[in-house]
């Protein structure tokens, strides 16, 4: 309910309140300024991601996350800055993303965020490197919340890029560590999207299994076009024919939802080891099928303790959607802390403050933005699709099912070495 107050009476009201509150307000502002060095400064964050097309449900969900938590962290961040979220649809296309970046820079935005599609991330990182080199004083920092191609923190690593998700090598390290103790896995099929991310998943899955489970046989491997396939039943028929008992897939969004839908319809009863079971669309496609058979490796899960649990419920009540991109929290936490430490919102100073920043996160214990490659070191969780119960109650997409944690991997387990040779600007 909003109460309409007409112009004149509102002005009169403000005047009256102004004189009444003037004295205490000044005191309050002063004490706040001392605690929050950048109180009132606006930091614009440009969200560049897919807001149309097959992957739009994921992109729009994450945009809502950023908007929802901007409000929360505007009140609590130690620097006292005000985060303002802007967004441009990149249609999941690298070319469109570069146009979006240009337009963001023209609008004076110094922080961009992107996550869906490592193909897009690789294009952005290149463009931002060039821009920052050519435009000193107008640098842009790139906060990557989901793109997990290891190249982004290895051969392509950049001082301006920070990754808050865990990269494919880390997730695969944890996943294969988990699979090591599962003797029922004998024949594995790798089905992935045909672009950098999918290829990396396949590559590191083979590598990790060879090291930890040399007895496991890879019975098939496929790459399919990204966000194009509507009908996965031919792939399911092929997987069944291969005799695989386990499928490893890095698919996300519609590519995972339609895959599991086809698996359910086609009567495939093997196990799925995934990266993104909890993401929009897939829970509905799974429904009550696949209980105990679909696993997810991620840096979070649906049943984390408070404050995340309370936030997730509040988000669901407000938007009717699920909160699964928890890297959003870490972006706000670390950005706020880095701005506080740097006593500035200048991207160069903030980037230096972000490097090597260690802090206690609102979930998963201590995290560290590793200085050498800007990869966040964090706890990973293996969770499994099962009926929601009293212990694990959160149910995404009204499925009455949940992702229950079955294993937790502290940061050192999944930490992988980097080959990054970072060049840093002079401050």
């Amino acid at each position, binding site marked *: 309910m909003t109460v309409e107050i007409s112009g004149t009476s509102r002005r009169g009201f403000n005047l009256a309140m102004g004189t009444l509150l003037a004295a205490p307000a000044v005191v309050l502002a002063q004490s706040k300024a001392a605690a929050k060095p950048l109180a009132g400064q606006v930091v614009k964050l440009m969200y560049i991601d897919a807001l149309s*097309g*097959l992957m*739009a449900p994921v992109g729009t969900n994450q945009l809502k996350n950023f908007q929802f938590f901007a409000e929360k962290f505007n009140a609590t961040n130690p620097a006292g800055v005000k985060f303002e979220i802007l967004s441009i649809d990149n249609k999941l296309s690298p070319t469109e993303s570069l146009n979006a970046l240009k337009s963001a820079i023209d609008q004076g935005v110094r922080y961009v965020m992107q996550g869906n599609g490592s193909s897009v991330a690789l294009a952005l990182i290149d463009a931002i490197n060039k821009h920052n080199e050519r435009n000193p004083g107008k640098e842009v920092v790139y906060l990557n919340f989901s793109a997990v191609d290891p190249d982004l923190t290895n051969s392509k690593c950049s001082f301006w890029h920070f990754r808050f998700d865990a990269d494919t090598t880390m997730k695969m390290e944890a996943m294969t560590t988990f699979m090591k103790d599962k003797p029922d896995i004998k024949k594995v099929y790798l089905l992935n999207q045909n672009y950098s991310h999918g290829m990396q998943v396949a590559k590191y899955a083979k590598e990790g299994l060879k090291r930890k489970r040399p007895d496991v046989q890879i019975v098939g491997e496929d790459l399919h076009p990204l966000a194009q396939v*509507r*009908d996965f039943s031919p792939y399911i*028929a*092929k997987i069944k*024919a291969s005799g695989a008992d386990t499928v490893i897939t890095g698919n996300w969004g519609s590519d995972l939802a339609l895959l599991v839908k086809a698996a359910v319809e086609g*009567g495939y009863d093997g196990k799925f080891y995934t990266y993104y079971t909890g993401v929009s669309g897939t829970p509905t496609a799974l429904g009550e099928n696949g209980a105990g058979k679909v696993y997810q490796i991620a840096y979070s899960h649906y049943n984390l303790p408070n404050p995340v649990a309370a936030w997730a419920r509040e988000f669901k009540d407000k938007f009717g959607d699920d909160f699964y991109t928890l890297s959003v929290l870490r972006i706000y936490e670390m950005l706020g802390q880095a701005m506080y430490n740097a006593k500035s919102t200048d991207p160069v100073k903030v980037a230096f403050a972000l490097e090597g920043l260690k802090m206690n996160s609102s979930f998963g214990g201590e995290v560290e933005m590793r200085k050498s490659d800007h990869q966040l070191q964090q706890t990973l969780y293996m969770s499994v699709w099962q009926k929601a119960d009293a212990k694990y109650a959160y149910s995404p997409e009204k499925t009455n099912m949940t992702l229950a944690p079955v294993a937790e991997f502290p940061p050192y387990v999944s930490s992988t070495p980097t080959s990054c040779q970072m060049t840093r600007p002079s401050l």
Partner: protein
Amino acid sequence: MEFFTISMLNGISYGLLLFMLSSGLTLIFSMMGVLNFAHASFYMLGAYIAYSIAQIVGFWPGLIVAPIVVAVLGALFERYCLRRVHKFGHVPELLITFGLSYVVLELVQLIWGRTALEFPPPEVLRGPAFTLVNSSADGMHFVFGAAPAAMCRAADAAVRIVCSPFPATRGFMMLVALLMLLALFLMLTRTRIGLVIQSALTHPEMVESLGHNVPRVFMLVFGAGAALAGLAGVIGGSTFVTEPAMAATVGSVIFVVVVVGGMGSLAGAFLASILIGVMQTFAVALDISVGSVLANFGVTATAGTLTSLTISQVAPILPYLLLVLILIFRPKGLLGTREG
């Protein structure tokens, strides 16, 4: 064996969906000489309108009403837009349908949003239509509906049993397409209006001078073609996904069907649809690459080059490759009658 059967059924059902779409397109083309670029847009409209109807009164009324609504929209478009530019020749006609496809796309996004919709098939179509039970002991047999769990589990460890359910939505898709083919055939060959349509195809002036209203026949054909696309949309949308890009993805494939089958040939469109459906399904299963063939002859190719691409990876481009090859070697298409 069960892999072959299921893949074949998948391929044929997809092919039949393509046929539902391309039959309307080829009918309109053979009659009016217009290559309707907006045809796939009618497919999308069918899905979205049926979705909206299904929200209120359920799937089945939507299946009937949505194609009728799409038919009316198509007929109105023919009457008030296409007919006006008809006198300027084929290029303006082509351009106006091209423009329409963009208008429809934007309108759909404005009305229903840019994200995919949840358009589930009705309850009766959610389970399997039948299940193939293949046992290494007593061979393969059919079970209607879902096979009981006990049947899919081998009592003896030495016996391998594979149950392959075939989704009812796909069975329904095949059924509707075949009924439609039959109805279309009967209408064109056995009814008076069918005779008028057929004669208007080749001799419109003669038909007109015999007192038939040929522009009205054109309008009816355009409307009917749009309705067929709409019907395909209802079924395709609920079986696969209902989202704004659905027109673009089938749009290019149905042109391939029409060109490969032969412009204006209904039988050709049928043949080409099935061919492309089956080809795309089976291509996914083939892990053969140029490199692996060469390796059989003792030549090793370096990994990561073009020669290591498998057929399953290039499956999505195969229809277009076929299109190019047909245009080069048999420009009139498989069953087409005229050149070019």
